[in-house]
């Protein structure tokens, strides 16, 4: 029973990772950039949600939508200002910029409002606890998992069935060829950032409701973990991010369950390094050969 309970704990933690990883993986898939700032967009989303609920007195759904919208705009802004000028620069330069953007958001945010944490109101969503055969399930964890799955499906539909989704895939595969189709590569990349950041915003609000405490540096670790999840599932692959996130959550829960909770983060990074070395394409990816 305890094991099942732990698996459920892992799945709800993993759902958060998955939500962040979905956006991460999209952005990486299209611009091949580890967008370090993604975790910070998540943080901003969480705060936007917080202020929407406490200051504007809104309920869950409008707060979620506002947060997603703000984050989408924010993501596009980041891309246009910081990443677009580096479209043809080395990947290292882009990575350094991403680190810079991440630090700027974090400390700019602290500069503006201070580093103190905020607490989401406890009553945004009802928390019902139901017990099935001794396993207690929180209605909120069901909700988180549900939202993650729904968003993943929506994302999958957008990417595979819509015109903009096709454009995204085309740009990610071969930007020059995509241009020759008449695709506006810049707009497509912006759209990717918008969608990815909106997902991060959604994750932020859900995180706030589930974990209550939010603070300006809250995005750092979940951001890194989400990246691990994306790599685990095969970077650039949407279902991969989902599975990678859930798997990472379960791994962490099991590590804690075994009494090694202090090693939880280390295990996540060990997983990252092992995957990078032995299976860089991830669980769902295909291997690609470098062209000489």
């Amino acid at each position, binding site marked *: 029973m305890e094991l099942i309970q732990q698996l459920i704990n892992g799945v709800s933690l993993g759902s958060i990772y998955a939500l962040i990883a979905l956006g991460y993986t999209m952005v990486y898939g299209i611009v091949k950039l580890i967008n370090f700032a993604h975790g910070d967009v998540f943080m901003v989303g969480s705060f936007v949600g917080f202020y929407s609920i406490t200051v504007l007195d809104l309920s869950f759904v409008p707060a979620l939508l506002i947060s997603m919208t703000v984050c989408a705009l924010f993501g596009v802004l980041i891309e246009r200002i910081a990443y677009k000028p580096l479209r043809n620069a080395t990947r290292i330069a882009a990575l350094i910029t991403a680190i810079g953007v991440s630090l700027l958001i974090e400390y700019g945010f602290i500069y503006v409002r201070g580093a103190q944490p905020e607490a989401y109101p406890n009553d945004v969503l009802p928390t019902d606890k139901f017990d099935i055969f001794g396993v207690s399930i929180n209605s909120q964890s069901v909700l988180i998992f549900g939202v993650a799955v729904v968003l993943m499906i929506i994302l999958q539909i957008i990417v595979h069935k819509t*015109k903009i989704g*096709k*454009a995204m*895939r*085309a740009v990610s*595969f*071969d930007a*020059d*060829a*995509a*241009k*020759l*189709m*008449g*695709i*506006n590569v810049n707009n497509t990349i912006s759209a990717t950032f918008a969608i990815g950041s909106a997902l991060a915003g959604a994750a932020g609000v859900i995180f706030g409701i589930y974990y209550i405490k939010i603070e300006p540096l809250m995005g750092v670790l979940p951001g890194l973990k989400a990246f691990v999840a994306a790599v685990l599932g095969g970077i650039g692959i949407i279902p991969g991010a989902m599975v990678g996130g859930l798997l990472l959550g379960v791994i962490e829960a099991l590590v804690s369950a075994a009494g090694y909770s202090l090693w939880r983060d280390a295990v996540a990074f060990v997983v990252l390094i092992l995957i990078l070395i032995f299976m860089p394409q991830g669980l769902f990816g295909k291997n690609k050969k470098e062209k000489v």
Partner: protein
Amino acid sequence: MLKIEDINVYYGNIQALKGISLSINEGEIVTLIGANGAGKSTMLKTVSGLLKPKQGKILYEGQSIGGKAAQSIVKMGISHVPEGRRVFANMSVEENLQLGAYLRKDKAGIKQDMEKVYELFPRLLERLKQQSGTLSGGEQQMLAMGRALMAKPRLLLLDEPSMGLAPLLVKQIFHIIEEINKTGTTILLVEQNANLALSIADRAYVVETGRIVLSGKSEELTASEEIKKAYLGGH
């Protein structure tokens, strides 16, 4: 229809095109021939907007398109089938064709053109749902051309359509190029197989290290001893 005046194009600080001028009339097949690295592909990329000329003018139907973004050039009716085909290997044949019509909004027209492409390339119809990465080289070339045609171009830029293809397929492809031309599409063809290119082209330009060194009617050039010596391997 297309008029290029004295353009210079650079990759970093290496000059790839040095003052090239050429013109194409409506309905023609014009070919660029020349050795690898001579600048033929650069020429096409510059016309389709993938590269920007540092100096010089490109006029398409009287409008200057030099330095314009690729998507607006596609919109004006120029499609480019790039070297190496560059099909979206992670997508199905059908999706590739749909992407070709990315800028078009006329659903009926798209459907009609899709049918036309199937007529030209029946093989594509057979493999509609297949991932295009799994197609053979020849089928990929057909897909790349079909995809370009979906944009309803008036000027089609073809880069090395024969590359890596078996002779029989090359023949087929070139036959289709002629067909496309007959329906009123003007064609600018880059080809290393000079003989073949000259056999279907009206006129040709010979490019050498970024310069045009010779131009004229195909028949004249085919007959020219100089061409034979340089490109056909004669002594």
